[in-house]
Every structure is written in structure tokens, then in C-alpha cells.
């Protein structure tokens, strides 16, 4: 999907999903119930997935729905259920008014500083002699191809490291969560 031929439609939807993401995020942090919060977070993720697609990152968008919303958040919900934390009455876990106000102000300061990043913008077109060759830049055609190229060439090491990382996480989770044998 590109914005060349349907600019208004594109822009409208971009802002729409942005708004959904933003509002859902706010609702997410203000929900008392963990289950509700988790579900609102899923909404944020869906909206982001839509934005990814609109930003020409279709594969990532799909992964977002499959892995993030589909797997990771399910695990969250699962744990919430497992620990039986669902009852809102015992989970009034949001800070008081002053705490929220202060947090909001701190958040405003933070976002103001982060917004400074827009001042410079992305102004340069970097190209270097050692930059990837033409066919690499062009890459295989299709949706996955452009991702696969860097993933298995430049970031092969990173890719392999993620596998080790997951392994570590698995051992860790198992070690921590299993019942004591002794």
C-alpha cells in the first residue's frame, strides 16, 4: 500500500489508527482490571499493526498481530488468570490523584523533550562506498524478501543471538517457575 494514489484516504486512515493507538494506550494505562488493561493493550497493538502495514512494513505488521498480540499478550493474560488477579476490587493499583498528576507532568516534560527530536528531522541521505551493493539494496522482490536479506546477511549474528536469547529465557523461566524439588 502506498500513498501515491490515494493520498487522502491514506492520510485519514493513518491518523485514524494513530488516534486509536493513542486513545487505547491511554485507556490501557487507566484501566483498573489487568484483564481489561491487557485487552486494551491488544487494541493498541492492532492499531500499530495497521500502521506498520501503512508504512510498507507488511511482514512486521503480520508478526505484530501473530507474535505480539497473539502470543505474548496471551501469555500475559494467561498469567493474570493463573494468579487470579482478575478481580478489580483488590487491584486498586493506581496511584492517588497527586501521584497521577505528578506522573502526568513528568510525562509531559518527557514527551516535550522527546519531541525535540523532530527539530532536526532526518535531513541526510547517507550513502557510503561500503554501503550495500545495488542488488542488496534492491533485494529480492516481495514482502519478505527485503527483510530476509539483512536478517540473514548483515544481521545473521543478531539472528543467531536471538536464538540463544530465547534459549536462555526458556531455561530461566523453567528454572524459576518449576516447583522446588528438594
Amino acid at each position, binding site marked *: 500500500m502506498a500513498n501515491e494514489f490515494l493520498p487522502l484516504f491514506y492520510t485519514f486512515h493513518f491518523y485514524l489508527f494513530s488516534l486509536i493507538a493513542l486513545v487505547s494506550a491511554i485507556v490501557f494505562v487507566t484501566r483498573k482490571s489487568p484483564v481489561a488493561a491487557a485487552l486494551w493493550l491488544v487494541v493498541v497493538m492492532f492499531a500499530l499493526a495497521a500502521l506498520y502495514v501503512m508504512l510498507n512494513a507488511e511482514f512486521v505488521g503480520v508478526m505484530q498481530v501473530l507474535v505480539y498480540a497473539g502470543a505474548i499478550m496471551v501469555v500475559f493474560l494467561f498469567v493474570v488468570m493463573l494468579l487470579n488477579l482478575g478481580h478489580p476490587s483488590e487491584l486498586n493499583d493506581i496511584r492517588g490523584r497527586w501521584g497521577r498528576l505528578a506522573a502526568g507532568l513528568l510525562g509531559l516534560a518527557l514527551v516535550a523533550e522527546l519531541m525535540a527530536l523532530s527539530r532536526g528531522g532526518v535531513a*541526510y541521505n*547517507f550513502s557510503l562506498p561500503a554501503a550495500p551493493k545495488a542488488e542488496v539494496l534492491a533485494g529480492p522482490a516481495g514482502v519478505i524478501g527485503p527483510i530476509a536479506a539483512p536478517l540473514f546477511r548483515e544481521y545473521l*549474528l543478531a539472528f543467531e543471538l536471538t536464538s540463544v536469547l530465547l534459549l536462555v529465557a526458556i531455561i530461566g523461566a523453567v*528454572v524459576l517457575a518449576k516447583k*522446588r524439588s528438594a
Partner: protein
Amino acid sequence: MNFDLSTPAGLMGALVPDIVLMVGAMVLMLYAAWRPESAAHQRNVGYASLVVIAVTVAAVLWFASRGLTATEGVIAVDGFRWAADVIFLLSAAATIAMGIESNPRDRIMGGESHVLVLFAAAGMMIMAASRDLMILFLGVEMMSIAVYVLAGINRGSIRSAEGALKYFLLGAFSTGFLLYGIALIYGATGTTNIAVVGERIASFALAGHAMLLIGVGLLLIGFAFKVAAVPFHMWAPDAYEGAPTPITAYMAAAVKAAAFAMFLRVWIEAFLLIDGAWFAPVWWVAAATMIVGNVVALAQRNMKRMLAYSSIVHGGYLLVAVAAGTPLGSSAFLFYAVAYTLATFGAFAVVSAVQKPGEHATPIADYDGLWSTRPWLAVGFGVCMLALLGFPIFGGAGFFAKWYVLQAALTSPRGLVPLSVVLVLTSVVSAGYYLHIVRVMFMRPRPEGAAEPATLQPLTRMVLVGSVVMLLVLGLFPGALAGWATSNAAITPPEARNPFPTVPFN
């Protein structure tokens, strides 16, 4: 030999020590899971882990001795990396050695703890090696996740679980900052390769670029969290206190060293030219770390917490070396890391010995009059304390470590005399708690009916004796270590390449 990192073979070649360690760790993981938990099995896995480390160390040393180089790429092949690797691996070995003996006491019967130490070490090695922010991030995560688990590995202890939770939550939180920083740096420079970032900052005059600077700021926050710099340090005392003692030592020494290794590499290779932006924040963070860490340490009544604050403080001292931002700073770091690691493991070996079985708390009062019952234990601990204090001769290499940092600070073109003064003045404050330990051990009587500390077990004793002897020898003859640190400090600062025509984007 020159590795061509653009080929998988070259990359693998350059990563042989890391691969050795990771593969070894994986094999051991299977071995650990092979049999039911038991003290004996735990011990066997531990010994096997030591063997893996030994092999890895051999590989590292072999690589280090070959004067290898590599093309530009995602990892560095240089002396700094090998030097840092040696520190991590020796720390891991000491941790495992102490763990083999203290785990049964803490009722940690699984061999997985040793495996996780190995994985964490692998993550550290990646951190020290990476020249790409993404690789760096994955290295950090590999180390962090392993250490999160290690912090909470004593499942029977609520303190351990609590420490792990705090460490994890805040760690994940800070990871967000770190990652955002990487994203913005990528956004500003179009690359995640550290060297290329540095070059592009030089070539394209990005010193005032807002996105870059915000990115660097976020990255600094992430790093500061990992090195437990004030005010991002709050996790450290709790996590250190909760973790099993050998793991605490590991966190205090190796995790910190790894964080600084990446900190220095990134800072020198990528951001040296924007020192105008980061100098003031780093200066203040360093000063705050030294002051707050030292002052709060004065109030501690628990040995592990005291050492946690002490570790925060030493992070502050090393931040001075970072602020110096010179190759001398990185060699000072290497020297310091060695001395600090030795002192830390020496100290925690004693803590581990004095710690009462079944009890998690380590009140300083347990050390009252230690000299009268265990003179050599007290002397060893005293040496470690003085080393941490940075005292010559009696504190061994600790003095020259501080000396080296001061040297880096005073020769820095950035004018760090005031920070050096802060360093020495806060060192005086640190005497308040290090010497307190000395006086508790030597000058107070042993309380009536105080339990005799258990005899040091052989591996722990080896760690203690080894650390102390090394400290003292290096304190008398620091030349070799200094030479090693100097020759391995060659993190190359960036230089501008021919700027390419800039084309306005979009």
C-alpha cells in the same frame, strides 16, 4: 589474520571464543537437565562449567596473542575485547567456584545456575565485542535475562524473588530507554554500526542534531542504569542483597565491567565528537554517583548492601574514566576492572564464608572481632576493603586503579580536575565505611557466644587467596598490568571520512 566479517566464515572465525562458550553452555544445559536436582549434580555441572570457561579462556588468550584484526563489521576484533573477555570469564569462573560450594547451603540444587552464569558471560562477551548497536542490545539482553534469573534463582528465598522482580522490572523499563535511544540514533545516522555512526557524525557535522542527541541521551540513560549510576541505581542494592552471594559478586563485578566495556566502546568510537552534549550529563551523573553512593553507603548495616553501594560508587569512579573519553580512559577502565573485580570477589568470598547457613541477611555485626577467630580471613577481607578504598600497598592494586583513573581524568582534554577532586573527596567519605569494616573486624571484641564462621571451603578459599594475592602482587608490581591495559586500550576514536554530497531527503 584478518577476518572478513562480511562472510559468515569470517564472522564465525572472529567469534570462536564466544561460540565455544555458548555451545559449551548449551551442552551443559542439556547435561544439567539430564539428571534430577541434587547437590552432587549441581557440583558436577559446576566443574564442567569451569572446564568450559577454561577452554574459552584459552581460546580468548590464543586469539589475543595472535594480534588479529578484522574488517569493519558488526563485531570488533581488538585487544580491548579480549582483555574485557578475560575479566568476564575469570569473574564467571570465580562465581561458579563460589557457587559450587555455597549453592547447597542456599538450597540451590539445580545445575542451571552455572549454565546461566555461562550464558550471562556469553552476553557480556558479545557486549564487549559488538560494534553494532543492535548486536549490543541483544548482548545486553542475553546477559540481563540470565542475570535476572540468577538473581532470583534461590526460589526458596523471598528476598531473592523480590530482588529479581525489582531488577527485572526496572531493567526492562530501562531497556525501553536504551532501545529508543538506539532507534533515534539509527534515525539520525541511518546506521547502527558504531564506527559508522562516529564517522557520520564527523562527516556530516551532526554534533547538534536533535534526534541524535536525544538518542544519545536515551542511550546514556540505558547505560547508566546498567552501570547503576545515580539516579538510575536504585535497583542495585536490593537486587544485590537478594541474590545469592556469588551471584551478587558476579553482578557487582562482571555485569558492571561488561556495562562499562560497552559504554566505553560506544562512547569513544561513536560519540567522542559530540562531547559538548554528553560531557555535562556524564559529569553530573558521575559526581552524583560518587557522592550519593558514598554517603548512603555510610548508613548501611548490612554487608551485602554496603558492598552494593560500594559497587555503585566504583561505577561513579569509572564514569570519570568515561568522562575522560580518551584511550587512557579505557585502559584505566581495564586496569580498574581487574583490581575491582579481584577486590570484589575477595570480599564476597569472605561474605560467603561468614554468612550463616539458612540465613539470608548479612549484618555487619557478624564481623565483630573476626580477627580473633579467623585472623587470615579478617586480613584478607581487610585487604579487599583497602583495595576498594584505593589504598596503596595494603590495598594492593586498588591504589593504582584509582591512580590510573585520576591519570585519565587529569590528562583528559576536557578538564576534569574538579571531578578528580570530587573523586578524592568522596574517597575520603568511603573510608568511613570501608574502615568501619576493618575496625569491626580488628578492633571490636568477638561477642560472647558468637558462632564461629564455617571453615572456608577449598574453592572459595582459592578465590579469596587468589584475589588477595593478586591484588597485593599487582599493588607492588602494577607495571605488567598497566602495560596490558595500555596496549589493549586501543578503541579507535572516529575520524571523519570524506563527506559525501548530501542530498535532501524526500
